[in-house]
């Protein structure tokens, strides 16, 4: 009978036999397919801080800042035009988002030092089937992916220990709520949650989340529920599926190992507003931590409270 160490020796020797080089044609095929293989972006912010946003968006946001600065500057000049006619102080109006054209000579990007988006009303979300969702940013320091439903305080990535951020999930009606957010890939339900009630029930039942009781709420005239979830303080993301603590994922993505809302760190607190917008459940998820400055949390609440839907 083979001793254990003999078996190990034989197996190791046997495994040494075999190819050790990837054929060029395989590598070539992979590289040829890259242009037609879109990367799957997480619809949460860690990998997409403003500093890594695409150039068009950077230019667009920079253009907004420059435009506002020009308005302020013009108003200042007009207001200090001694001897000239009085000019009513104009309130700088942040430009509602659009898809801006990149300029040949891009102005500098906004940074944490410049305060990010100027206070004002923005289109935060503009995707089918929900359409447009507008919010008012009440204070400086917010960065984001406008129309993509992401806002982040101080370009922090909403990371521990004191980050804050907000994400809108409204693009689908095929949400899967895993029963265990850590072992999420193996605890996805067979059927998606397609209504507000189903989403709330699924999230309330998630293991290890200590969900608050859902309470009635109205956001932008649409009824639903609000509730709070918290990632356990001792959660070890490294031991979770794909290293992610996943609250919710679209069925089409989850079946291939992707998650939409995965968390930034243990202890993260999430307040959810889940409302029905013409038959589509829309999730607004604001996340922060115990050490997040209370005023940032207040700003998150104010942003959600300002929500309107439609043009």
């Amino acid at each position, binding site marked *: 009978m083979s001793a254990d160490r003999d078996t190990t020796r034989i*197996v*190791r020797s046997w495994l040494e036999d075999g*190819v*050790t080089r990837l054929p060029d044609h*395989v590598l070539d095929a992979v590289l040829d397919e890259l242009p037609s293989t879109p990367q799957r972006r997480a619809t949460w912010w860690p990998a997409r801080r403003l500093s890594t946003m695409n150039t068009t968006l950077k230019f667009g946001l920079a253009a907004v800042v420059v435009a506002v600065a020009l308005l302020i500057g013009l108003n200042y000049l007009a207001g200090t035009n001694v001897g000239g006619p009085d000019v009513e102080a104009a309130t700088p109006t942040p430009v509602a988002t659009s898809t801006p054209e990149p300029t040949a000579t891009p102005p500098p990007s906004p940074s944490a030092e410049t305060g990010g988006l100027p206070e004002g009303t923005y289109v935060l979300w503009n995707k089918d089937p929900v359409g447009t969702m507008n919010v008012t940013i009440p204070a400086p320091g917010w960065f984001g992916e406008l129309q993509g439903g992401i806002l982040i305080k101080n370009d922090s990535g909403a990371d521990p220990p004191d980050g804050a951020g907000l994400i809108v999930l409204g693009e689908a009606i095929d949400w899967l709520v895993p029963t265990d957010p850590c072992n999420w890939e193996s605890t996805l339900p067979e059927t998606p949650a397609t209504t507000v009630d189903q989403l709330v029930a699924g999230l309330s039942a998630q293991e290890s989340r200590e969900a608050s009781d859902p309470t009635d709420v109205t956001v932008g005239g649409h009824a639903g529920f609000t509730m709070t979830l918290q990632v356990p303080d001792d959660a070890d993301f490294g031991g979770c*599926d794909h290293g992610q603590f996943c609250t919710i994922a679209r069925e089409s993505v989850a079946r291939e190992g992707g998650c939409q809302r995965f968390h930034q760190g243990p202890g993260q607190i999430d307040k959810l507003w889940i409302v029905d917008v013409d038959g589509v459940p829309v999730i607004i998820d604001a996340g922060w931590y115990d050490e997040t400055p209370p005023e940032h949390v207040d700003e998150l609440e104010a942003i959600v409270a300002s929500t309107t839907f439609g043009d």
Partner: protein
Amino acid sequence: MDTDLVTRAQRGDEEAFASLAVAAGDRLHAVAHRILRDLHLAEDATQQALLAIWRDLPQLRDPARFEAWSYRLLVRSCYAEGRRERSWTPHLRLLDSDEPMQADESSTVIDRDQLERGFRRLSIDHRAVVVLHHYLDWPLERVADALGIPPGTARSRLHHAMRGLRAALDADARPPEREAAQ
């Protein structure tokens, strides 16, 4: 692994990803071949794994974990390719020969044949643990981390797999049953 390359590739830099693929491709392919025991399936698995790595790279939160994460995607591709395997390559058989084989050579060939059979009876889960541990020489904790399983599960899979392989080798210790060529 150069985390700067990973970060650039996460942002869609194809050139950076090409560098990553060149650096990691040989190793991934070698592992795929040893798990699947078929050259063509291994090529397909490696190709699919590299494309999956490109596609999902933005979702990798920690670039420093690229290597472990890439093996997890590779093993997943091996699952998919393994399902395509309808029948495995013909058994190596002992044939009558004009030139008698030396006893040691014969024993080695039989060992490898029996190992091949025993290994193919294992699930991809078990094969992956054996290959990562005994071929890449990774400690079980690292294997578990790469595969996203608890260390105890990795240990259990390795134990089960090695028991199966030992049984396959032991079967060879019984009086040889000379197989006829088909």
